[in-house]
């Protein structure tokens, strides 16, 4: 439903103010929905039409229950599309609606301008509706249960994509000639005077080297040639799928790539939108009588659950910190090397570049680079950040450190690869028996074994031949295998 006239007026006003602030966004369409409508759209990840699958029902079950019990209420929902669609909850107060609209314009600006969103499909509303139609057609033809079971398998590997691949060009396959030259060079030959040649580079040794290289060349090229992080693509191209299955897997993969940038920029995106709703509300939009309600709402969104990280909070504070630092010139070699605490505290070169800087930051950074570049010891201290770990002895999580390096490392690890484990296909024809070997690039964190086994079952359903996963469990190199009947775990 479209907005009532008074909110339409507000929307026009907020849009103009946002433009004046320098935000640059797609046209934004607000829809008014009731509580149940909001829960529905939220279960569909913001889209009006999705394919039929029970996991949306599961989401709906949880969201609507927690809404009914008054435990949570979704205020804001916006989707990356051109035009942007956003939803307002009917019955919210005017302050709430203004706040949400201002927040949404922040998101829209981010979607449109942030580098990591550039490859996303901006017609995703249409695209997802068409996916729904296509999947429905497959269901009509192949049977609901069959397609649903297949969707289960696809969805259980939807995080196995190469989230950085849309931003890089794949390295071209090396030409045969280049490979030959490289291999020729690989024969070790020391420089020697003529009369020493046969001693320093004995002919038998050279022959042996050549033979070895020859044998290597003759061996079948590896399949895949180099480890493939986009497991979904590998299966799409190489698994024995029927055409409807290929079509379905392809769609799920496209959707995964569409949603990936949101995982990559959660902190920044929310931080940016919060920064701007706060700016616009306090600077322009609030009537005097609305201040308290706004403050309460804003504080609610920024609230830190004890022992957790709130992306809204960390994001907005980092953006404000950056603005402040670039306004006062608190960066660079001179500032970093200044040992005088008082001088550092009072540091102000009057640079005034803050605003320019944060716009630059929102354009080219993602969460990982954002934290890597702009998290400072002062910031960690001011925000009271810490790292925690599970202590098996006391059976609770305990603060392990307040050291800047530890915090930053832990934070970056949790953000790397969008918080997902890196899994790649290393062998598509293992032991020449068509078995699939996946490898978990293990740094720091183990996989959950029960889940890993179940997932392997799904991978097997797609690949149909035995599948293996190489990983590390509690420091030991292990290999999980599933051959369609039994799960095994062995050392490797």
């Amino acid at each position, binding site marked *: 439903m479209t907005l009532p006239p008074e909110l339409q007026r507000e929307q026009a006003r907020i849009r103009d103010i946002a433009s004046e602030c320098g935000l640059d966004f797609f046209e934004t369409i607000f829809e008014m929905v009731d509580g149940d409508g909001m829960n529905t759209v939220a279960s569909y990840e913001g889209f009006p039409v999705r394919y039929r699958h029970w996991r949306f029902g599961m989401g709906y079950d949880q969201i609507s229950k927690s809404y009914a019990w008054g435990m949570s209420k979704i205020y804001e929902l916006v989707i990356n599309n051109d035009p942007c669609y956003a939803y307002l909850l009917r019955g919210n107060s005017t302050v709430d609606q203004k706040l949400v609209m201002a927040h949404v314009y922040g998101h829209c600006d981010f979607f449109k301008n942030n580098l990591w969103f550039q490859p996303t499909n901006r017609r995703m509303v249409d695209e997802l509706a068409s996916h729904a139609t296509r999947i429905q057609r497959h269901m009509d033809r192949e049977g609901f249960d069959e397609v649903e079971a297949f969707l289960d398998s696809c969805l259980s590997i939807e995080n196995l994509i190469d989230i950085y691949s849309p931003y890089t060009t794949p390295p071209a396959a090396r030409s045969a000639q280049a490979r030959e030259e490289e291999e020729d060079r690989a024969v070790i030959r020391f420089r020697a005077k003529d009369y020493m040649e046969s001693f320093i580079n004995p002919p038998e040794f050279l022959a042996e080297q050549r033979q070895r290289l020859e044998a290597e060349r003759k061996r079948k090229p590896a399949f895949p040639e180099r480890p493939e992080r986009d497991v979904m693509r590998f299966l799409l191209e190489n698994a024995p799928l029927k055409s409807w299955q290929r079509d379905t897997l392809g769609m799920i993969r496209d959707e995964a790539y569409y949603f990936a940038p949101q995982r990559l920029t959660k902190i920044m995106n929310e931080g940016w939108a919060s920064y701007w709703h706060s700016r616009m509300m306090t600077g322009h939009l609030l009537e005097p009588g609305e201040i308290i309600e706004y403050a309460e709402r804003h504080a609610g969104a920024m609230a830190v659950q004890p022992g957790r990280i709130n992306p809204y909070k*960390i994001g907005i504070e980092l953006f404000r910190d950056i603005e402040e630092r670039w306004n006062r010139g608190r960066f660079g070699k001179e500032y970093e090397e200044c040992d005088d605490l008082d001088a550092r505290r009072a540091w102000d070169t009057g640079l005034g570049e803050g605003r320019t800087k944060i716009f630059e930051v929102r354009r080219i950074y993602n969460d990982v680079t954002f934290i890597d570049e702009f998290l400072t010891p002062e910031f960690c201290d001011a925000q009271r950040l810490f790292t925690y770990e599970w202590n098996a002895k006391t059976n609770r*999580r305990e*603060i392990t450190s307040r050291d800047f390096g530890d915090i930053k490392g832990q934070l970056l690890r949790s953000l790397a690869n969008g918080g997902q484990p890196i899994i790649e296909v290393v062998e598509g024809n293992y032991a020449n028996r068509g078995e699939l070997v996946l490898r978990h690039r293990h740094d720091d964190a183990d996989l959950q074994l029960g889940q890993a086994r179940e997932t392997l*079952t799904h991978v097997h359903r797609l690949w149909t031949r035995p599948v293996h996963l190489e990983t590390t469990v509690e420091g030991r190199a292990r290999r999980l295998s599933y051959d369609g009947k039994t799960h095994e775990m062995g050392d490797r």
Partner: protein
Amino acid sequence: MMVHTIDLDHSRFKHIVRGAIRRDLKKHIANGAMIARQGAKTVSIPLPQIDLPRFRFGSNEGGSGVGQGEGEVGDPAPGEPQPGRAEAGEAPGEHALEVEVTLEELAKILGEELQLPNIQPKGKKQVTTEVHRYTGLRRIGPASLRHLRRTFKRALKREIASGRFGPKGGMVVPIRDDMRYRAWDPRTIPESNAVILYMMDVSGSMGDEQKEIVRIEAFWIDTWLRSQYRHIETRYIVHDAEAKEVDQHTFFHLRESGGTKISSAYELCNTLIDRDYPPDEWNIYPLHFSDGDNWSGGDTARCLELLRHQLLPKVNVFCYGQVRSTYGSGQFKTDLDNAFPDEPRVLTSDIPDKEGIMASIREFLGSGK
């Protein structure tokens, strides 16, 4: 632009949940965990296998991460529950999905899985109860029952008829004659009430494990009977050499030591029925759990006599569940079986361990009485 296919997805999800509970019903029954999570009308069942599996991080411990808040190194992270109360579900990476199921739903699943027949309440038509329904109006009554709308309507009619109220204005003031009050009618409706009388042997030979079995079985029988009767009461009797009535908590946690005189419980049970539950108004379910050891053959004879002449004529069925324990001889069940070989109202069941609960429930409830 809203299309509510979500309802389809939602009902599909609920169907899957039910399927998952049914598939593992035996496991759910055997592990009493869900009973601890019982609310007034729902239980929440952890179903780890519902959500789609993923390759995801998570050691089998609580993991590590970054948080925000006060505290020194070595302190529990803010928001951690106090020591001794670890909640596994809180840990990141543990994705045990908790599903809320209503007791009604649970009873339905149990019924479908065990193929339990619906219970035929005895003397359905004879057992009646009187209820009051507000169905009419009258002109006198207490102010608390005043029917505002009707009163106002009468007043409005009167004022309009008298010309004092019209498009030009006027006021509507009800006078005494306008007042209307709700009136009730007594109505008799057929009612099926049921009472479950739990009896348990708490003598020294019944250990914690045996009580846990009784507790789980009682929960399921309760759930099923509740789905069958509109109104249900439960009474609890414990006995060793003497019997006494206790509340639910005591029933499951009390531990006495000493001898066993089963007849004491049957006597008390009989007294309760005579006092509170006239058999022509109530469906009566005495359930007795014991490890099968009785004080003496003489007492057993007394039990059998009580059963034959006092209890059986009054009850729907009499259920005896014998929980196997290391100390019990298990003689009592044999005695019962021998004494009532062809009596359909005496149901006995042997429960070797938690796995046996399901079969025992079927034996008790499968008769449809």
